């Protein structure tokens, strides 16, 4: 019999409640955390979500599969490309379309670039949560280089609906490979700076080590995926377990750690940045020639059935569940977004710490609020 993990919140009417959010600098969006305080100590955390619920799942029911793509950008806007890819892969699998090799390679490279950009932004925001304001600008400075590469190829910096069922919208820009290689070279020099500035800093380590411990059992039971889950030893990397695109062709490590505190989650993301650069370097010179899209019908009708596709976004496992009745519109589209589960664990690992720790823990979970609210 497995141990049952419970953390039912028991509320008292005379609790000293302060609200962190919806309008608060450290919740990274419109999230509301209800903190019950005892002095500086937090007794429990109740997250309230839904402030930017847009009904995307309902909207998907009246959209064709091509049109769904641009909505998925807007969940986790920092890993827009991976979200796009989830839907595209699902549709391609359902139709049993074989996409060209070139597309697979490009998608993988873009995934990793996007992951790098996302982790950079997370790094700046995490530093800022802990009061190190300069990190914000260093992270954004390096992220800007990636966004420039994106802009050249996709025309937009953040929400690039670049994937389409069957392939890509365009071919990559002729400069893409050159600039990506330049970026990797540049960022390999800049990433150690992150460590000097923040990771090795004694104040930072004091703030994060041993804070917000999450065990492997908790991570699995709460469905915490992505770097946050892997920091607890939950081997949840979809890229490794269920390879898609060109991930089965590259040699990379799934970075795992078992310490499970805030500092581990931090270190793991930094390590993932190194690993992402490795993946890109393996692929960038070997992009095969070919078409940038498979032949697709202008109106896509999925065969009747239920399809589930998982991809690894920069925050964890993203799942797309499509139910089709054979029409051009899906019957139901459900998005399993990583942050939804990741936020729920906050009370479990956050209660009992101080206010400042809640900020650090929620920062280390790397929450993106639109991803939760959908």
């Amino acid at each position: 019999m497995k141990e049952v993990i419970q953390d039912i919140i028991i509320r008292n009417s005379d609790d000293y409640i302060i609200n962190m959010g919806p309008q608060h600098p450290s919740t990274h969006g419109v999230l509301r955390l209800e903190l019950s305080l005892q002095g500086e100590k937090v007794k429990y955390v109740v997250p309230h979500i839904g402030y930017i619920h847009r009904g995307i799942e309902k909207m998907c029911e009246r959209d064709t599969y091509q049109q769904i793509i641009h909505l998925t950008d807007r969940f986790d806007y920092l890993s827009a490309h991976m979200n796009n890819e989830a839907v595209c892969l699902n549709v391609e699998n359902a139709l049993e379309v074989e996409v060209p090799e070139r597309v697979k390679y490009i998608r993988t490279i873009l995934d990793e670039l996007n992951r790098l950009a996302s982790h950079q932004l997370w790094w700046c925001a995490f530093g800022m949560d802990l009061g190190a304001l300069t990190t914000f600008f260093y992270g954004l400075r390096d992220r800007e280089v990636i966004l420039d590469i994106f802009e050249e190829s996709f025309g937009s910096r953040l929400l690039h609906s670049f994937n389409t069922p069957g392939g890509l919208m365009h071919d990559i820009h002729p400069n893409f490979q050159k600039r990506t290689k330049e970026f990797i070279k540049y960022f390999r020099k800049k990433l150690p700076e992150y460590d000097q500035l923040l990771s090795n800093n004694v104040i930072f380590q004091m703030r994060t080590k041993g804070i917000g411990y999450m065990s492997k059992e908790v991570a699995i039971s709460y469905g915490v995926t992505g770097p946050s889950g892997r920091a607890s030893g939950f081997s949840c990397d979809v890229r490794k377990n269920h390879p898609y695109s060109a991930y089965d062709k590259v040699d990379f490590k799934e970075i795992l750690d078992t310490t499970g505190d805030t500092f581990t989650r931090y270190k793991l993301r930094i390590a993932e940045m190194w690993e992402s650069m490795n993946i890109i370097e393996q692929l960038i010179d070997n992009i095969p020639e070919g078409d940038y899209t498979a032949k697709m019908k202008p109106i896509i009708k999925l065969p009747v059935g239920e399809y589930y596709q998982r991809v690894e976004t920069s925050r964890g496992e993203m799942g797309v569940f499509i139910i089709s009745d054979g029409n051009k519109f899906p019957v139901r589209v459900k998005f399993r977004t990583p942050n939804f589960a990741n936020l729920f664990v906050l009370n479990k690992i956050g209660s009992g710490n101080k206010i400042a720790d809640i900020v650090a823990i929620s920062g280390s979970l790397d929450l993106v609020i639109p991803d939760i609210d959908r």
Partner: protein
Amino acid sequence: MDFNIYDFTSFTKWVDNALNSSMSPLLAIIIELIIIGLVFLLFYAIVGLLLVYAERKVCAVIQNRYGPNRVGPFGIFQTIADLIKLLMKELINIKHADNFLFNLAPFIVIIASFMAIAALPFAKGLQAIDFNIGIFYLFAVSSLGVIGILLAGWSSNSKYSLIGAIRSGAQVISYELSVGLSLLAIVVFAGTMQLSGIIESQADGWWIIKGHFPALVAFVIFLIASTAETNRGPFDLAEAESELTAGFHTEYSGIKFAFFFLAEYMNMFIVASIAATMFLGGWMPFHIAGWDGMNAIMDYVPPIVWFFGKTIFVILMMMWFKWTFPRLRIDQLLNLEWKYLLPLNLMNIVLVAFIVLMGWYIK
């Protein structure tokens, strides 16, 4: 009149005599007070504005940005524009706030910094009040501002403010010990508490050089503790933007907020000039005993330049801290003080006393 920028004593005397000889003593004193008042008011405002500008520019360059560059050349009038904006902003009254204390708080923080400025020695003879317990007075007055912060947080009727205020209370009272004890090291070296006396004692070398190791330790501790006492840098727990939105001044708007802002920068200036005075020789030029040639060259630089140069150096250090480090947590902050700085400081004092006893410092 004998005016020279190396020694203001004769200048102030001349003003005093001129006034006294031309009018009744009472009127002379009143005129004198008005002149001093205006000069200091102007000085206060200019230093405040410049420091705000300097911090913006320094943090901008550290963060690979340009910083203010719109209002005037290099944006030097940015802070003036901000001041005007803050003056024009509405003063919002908060429901159920303790109005009297709420309005009193900015007065206290500003008055505390004004009282501290009164005792600062800017140059030879350029010091409003030269107490015989000058450093003790500064030490006392500069920590008065925390009362304003406590009142502000308490009276706002906001939970964030309250937490910020209480944190700041615990923080400032703790770090005051370290400030006092690290200054005590120099008092033991100099054997006087009068600021002019302490500066005179550094004529042949600053205490940080003469007092070598223990003075350096005291200087570092003073830097840390005074940064904490001014609620700055990695110790800005009372504001703690990412936790308490704006901490104790969450509810303050317009010009009332501006005073907290101004007071923070003035306090930084005050502690920096205390550090400059105590450890770096104040307005004393850089002298090494015996090297008469170099000492003579150093003497050409006016004392007021020396004073401000050293103060700016310390201020830059404090800005450097602020824009590099993450914020501490409240329990770590107090740990740092009670378990590290205070014991180290006590040891350091004993070491200083021993060195003075044996005469092992550079005379």
